């Protein structure tokens, strides 16, 4: 009788062990699909593990893998959803911190700057992560960088030794940026000067020409006591070109800054070897 019991127990233990081993193999398969950049299939297989993982042994790994796959596939909202699930099932403080940082990185990518900042504040207040202040500073720098606040980003990266390269890039961008208010101010004083400051010479000269022409016609009309003509030319033509000159100056400066922003992010995406969102 006893041997039968023992064999039965052995079979049951082997069965349970095999089932868990199968899940482990399945998870490894999902991870290999992820490594091959087959994100859709990686998500399917990871979800299969999650569905059959009755003991919830792999919850954290599975949710993290699904989230990573969604993120690499460009589905940021879905990625956050699964990182949040992973966060809730994190086994250690390190896993929790790493997952929270991943959520922050996605928020930086989707330009949810205030949310990312708030999440960084929360992490900073948490005593478990007191030793990770430089990591938090580093991601604050990235948040500022994506927020087009290069000066603050440079200051933050300046406090971290390993981020000197990023600091230099931010300082360089800050130097290259055009001041929108300066461009506008120039065009207020001298029509077309703001456009010339931003490198749009033809537009600047044309703007100057139109303003001189309609200014002259307006003054001439008033001098000849043709008040109605003067008002109409002044209000409908001169003022319109003068205002257009101001908005053009601001628009060109913003466009140039936006180009600089995109080029820098593109450069960092392709060439920066360190951690990035």
């Amino acid at each position: 009788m006893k041997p039968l019991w023992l064999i039965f127990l052995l079979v049951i233990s082997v069965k349970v062990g095999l089932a868990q081993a199968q899940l482990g193999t399945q998870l490894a398969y999902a991870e290999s699909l992820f490594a091959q950049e087959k994100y859709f299939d990686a998500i399917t297989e990871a979800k299969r593990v999650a569905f059959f993982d009755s003991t919830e042994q792999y919850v954290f790994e599975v949710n993290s893998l699904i989230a990573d796959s969604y993120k690499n596939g460009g589905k940021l909202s879905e990625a956050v959803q699964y990182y949040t699930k992973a966060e809730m099932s994190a086994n250690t403080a390190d896993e929790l911190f790493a997952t929270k940082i991943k959520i922050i990185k996605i928020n930086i990518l989707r330009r949810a700057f205030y949310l990312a900042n708030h999440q960084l504040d929360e992490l900073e207040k948490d005593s478990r992560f007191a030793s990770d202040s430089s990591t938090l500073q580093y991601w604050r720098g990235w948040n500022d960088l994506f927020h087009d606040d290069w000066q603050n980003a440079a200051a933050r990266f300046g406090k971290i030794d390993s981020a000197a390269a990023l600091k230099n890039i931010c300082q360089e961008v800050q130097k290259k940026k055009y001041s929108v208010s300066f461009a506008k101010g120039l065009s207020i004083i001298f029509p077309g000067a703001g456009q010339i400051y931003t490198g749009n010479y033809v537009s600047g000269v044309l703007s100057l020409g139109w303003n001189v022409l309609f200014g002259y016609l307006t003054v001439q009309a008033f001098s000849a006591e043709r008040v109605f003509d003067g008002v109409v030319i002044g209000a409908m033509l001169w003022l319109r070109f003068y205002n257009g000159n101001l908005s053009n100056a601001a628009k060109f400066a913003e466009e140039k800054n936006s180009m600089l922003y995109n080029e820098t992010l593109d450069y960092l995406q392709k060439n920066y070897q360190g951690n990035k969102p």
Partner: protein
Amino acid sequence: MRSYFFFCLLVISISSLFAQERGLLTPEKRKAFADYLFCEKDYLRAAEEFEAVNNENQNDSLQYKIGLCFLKMGEYEKAKHDFSQLRNSSLGEESRLLTLKIAFLQNEGNKESTEPSFKNEVYKTASLRLTMALKIKERITQTNLISLGNILDENDKVDFNTIFLNKERWQRKSPFAAAIFSAILPGAGKIYTKNYGDGITSLVVTGLFTFLCYENILAGHPTRAWIFAGLTGFFYWGNVYGSYISARNYNREKEEELNSEYESYLGSKNYFVPEEIEGKCK
């Protein structure tokens, strides 16, 4: 007796060990996983899993679920194809009803009229309501509203009546009338199409250029008078044409608004299709 019992248990356990050879990819497990994905609204993956099981073991209910996945994803042609293969199966009536729903969603005319009537009373009523809703979508009339009244619940009758009245009462703006109004008084056509801002601007601009033209004629500046006359003509005819377009835009926008209101109402009712036939999820 007891040893016989343990022996049986042992045999079952060992055989279940061998059953694990295919791991998580046995048809039963794949189906359970597909059902889970379906309820998670991950329809693309659910369809793939159902298809994998169906390829191994053809089954009407699996085919039906594949169709449901495509329907939920908005892949109507694929869904119709799957449902069309089930017409003579035990899920034939459900498939026909869902095909009718797809016809509605795809703005197709009612092709179900030549088909035999539904045996199931619930589906029969649903199909009648949906068929009539489709007719109303194409063109609402008092007659088909009355026919619909016979097969609707009291609450639905009230809703349909409101939709009918909204559709019936709104007045189309005639593009030709708008153009004529603007020809008589610049901007009046636009005001007639409730485009008040543009109407007043048209009146002011055309009036201003006319005045400038007149003043320059009086002042003996023929060149300037011609320039302003040209501008007046340009704005005048532009305003006439603009009023014609404005009336057309008004009609189109109003129709879109009413159709969207009607569609969202029907969507909230799941197009009268019982939700149970679209997959149960806890």
